[in-house]
């Protein structure tokens, strides 16, 4: 590991000043991803600015029904918060589906959004990777890609975003707040992650040197009846091979409101807007759910070893929506 300077900050302006425009400096949050990447040489910062003790560790429940989540709130505190569990149960479930108890106690909300892909080629500095070394190539396309993207990828990178939390945040229209030396800004999560194209190394629309300060969830009554379901290769403590965050409100048999987002299928949490549009007003039931899933997955471009994900996501979406509607009808 490269030697590094370490500074701890207690206010946002101090954090921004210390990071400056130094390309070799990084903010250190929970460290569950960054420290690991430093050990393998994927990340080689010369300075760490420790933001773990910034006063951004609060969750504020708005009277309007929304939530404001500070960037240094840990995954554990987010998932345990009564208003998260009441207003957005799928968000609590998504967080609890990720990592282990130990890692959830360390990891933070801001860091979760910025975590890097678990593509094996990205993590192996002896191999080419367009995300790690632009222009070096993507061995995954011809190689090991059974857990890679089926949606929104490119010929330059087929890696998936590993977050569970982000999938639920995408379903519920989260907005990311940040600070820069020039002042604050906001990005809807739908615009936070950049399209892959030929620049897979550019992952987010955050301005250079920006610090994520929090995430806002607007009120969403439909989210009170929501679910996150994750498929993985072992029963616990593994990244998803596919996941769905879903919320649905059925009135008189017809879909009144619905939210759908997919995980582990793209370089970002994938909001399934085509499926949502297809479902609004439709008669709730397996037939409509399957048709909506097919409409969303028409855009899928699977590789030889991950075509199973198309069927998996279709069945997962139908199953979760069926469960939610049957429970509501009881």
């Amino acid at each position, binding site marked *: 590991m490269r*030697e590094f300077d370490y500074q701890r900050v207690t206010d946002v302006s101090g954090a921004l000043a210390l990071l400056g425009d130094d390309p070799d400096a990084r903010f250190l949050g929970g*460290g569950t991803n960054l420290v690991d990447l430093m050990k393998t040489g994927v990340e080689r910062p010369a300075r760490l600015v420790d933001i773990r003790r910034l006063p951004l560790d609060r969750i504020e429940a708005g009277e309007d029904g929304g939530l404001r989540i500070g960037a240094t709130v840990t995954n554990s505190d987010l998932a345990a918060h*009564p208003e998260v569990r009441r207003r957005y149960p799928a968000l609590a*479930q998504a967080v*609890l589906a990720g990592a*282990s*108890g130990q890692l959830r106690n360390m990891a933070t909300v801001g860091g979760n959004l910025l975590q890097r892909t678990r593509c094996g080629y990205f993590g192996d500095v002896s191999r080419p990777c367009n995300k790690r070394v632009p222009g070096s190539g993507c061995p995954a396309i011809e190689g090991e890609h059974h857990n890679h993207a089926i949606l929104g990828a490119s010929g330059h990178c087929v890696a998936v975003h590993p977050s569970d939390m982000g999938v639920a945040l995408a379903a519920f229209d989260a907005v990311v707040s940040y600070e820069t030396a020039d002042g604050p800004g906001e990005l809807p999560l739908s615009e936070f992650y950049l399209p892959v194209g030929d620049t897979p190394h550019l992952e987010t629309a955050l301005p250079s040197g920006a610090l994520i300060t929090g995430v806002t969830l607007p009120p969403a009554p439909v989210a009170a009846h929501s679910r996150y379901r994750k498929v993985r290769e072992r029963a616990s403590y593994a990244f998803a091979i596919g996941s769905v965050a879903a919320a649905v409100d059925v009135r008189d048999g017809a879909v009144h409101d619905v939210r759908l987002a997919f995980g582990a299928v793209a370089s970002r949490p994938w909001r399934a807007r085509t499926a949502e549009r297809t479902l609004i007003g439709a008669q709730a039931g397996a037939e409509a759910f399957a048709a909506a899933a097919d409409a969303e997955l028409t855009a899928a471009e699977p590789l030889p070893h991950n075509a199973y994900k198309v069927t998996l996501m279709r069945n997962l979406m139908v199953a979760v929506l069926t469960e939610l509607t049957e429970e509501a009808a009881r």
Partner: protein
Amino acid sequence: MAPSTSSGVTLNINGEKYTLSVDHRTTLLDALRERLDLTGTKKGCDQGQCGACTVLLDGRRVVSCLQFAVAAEGREITTIEGVADGDRLHPVQQAFLDLDGYQCGYCTPGQICSAVAMLQEHAAGWPSAVTEDVRPEAGPPPLTTDEIRERMSGNLCRCAAYVSIVDAVAKAATPLEGEAVA
């Protein structure tokens, strides 16, 4: 101020203060084992995946291999050497002894530290990934075998002593019932 790659730190471990100079690259795990002779905490994968290095930081379980020592300054660190009350073993330690919650023993300090904090998380009403209904109105989930397995999934045991580990954690969760039976 010129950048520096090491710092003097004071670490508060098991109620005692330790002052030392650390290279910033030193993990809390390596500081405990290599610098402070607190070798109860074990190094397994060194990548945050196995849980052998689990310690408590301000009462919460974390993996010490992904925690830089310099960043732990000012926080209360509890290692396996600090979970007992003097000569009186922690109920989790006693349950592991009583029910053979181990085989080779290498993962055991991490399992015990993890279980100590996990029982507190459960007592505080935290749901888990296998909790049927996470809404607060549903009340705290009973600590079933499935709940214990899910909540302890961050601690691997290469000997696969899981059956006894789960039994030990369950016994520690209900010490009074355990005594009544015994």
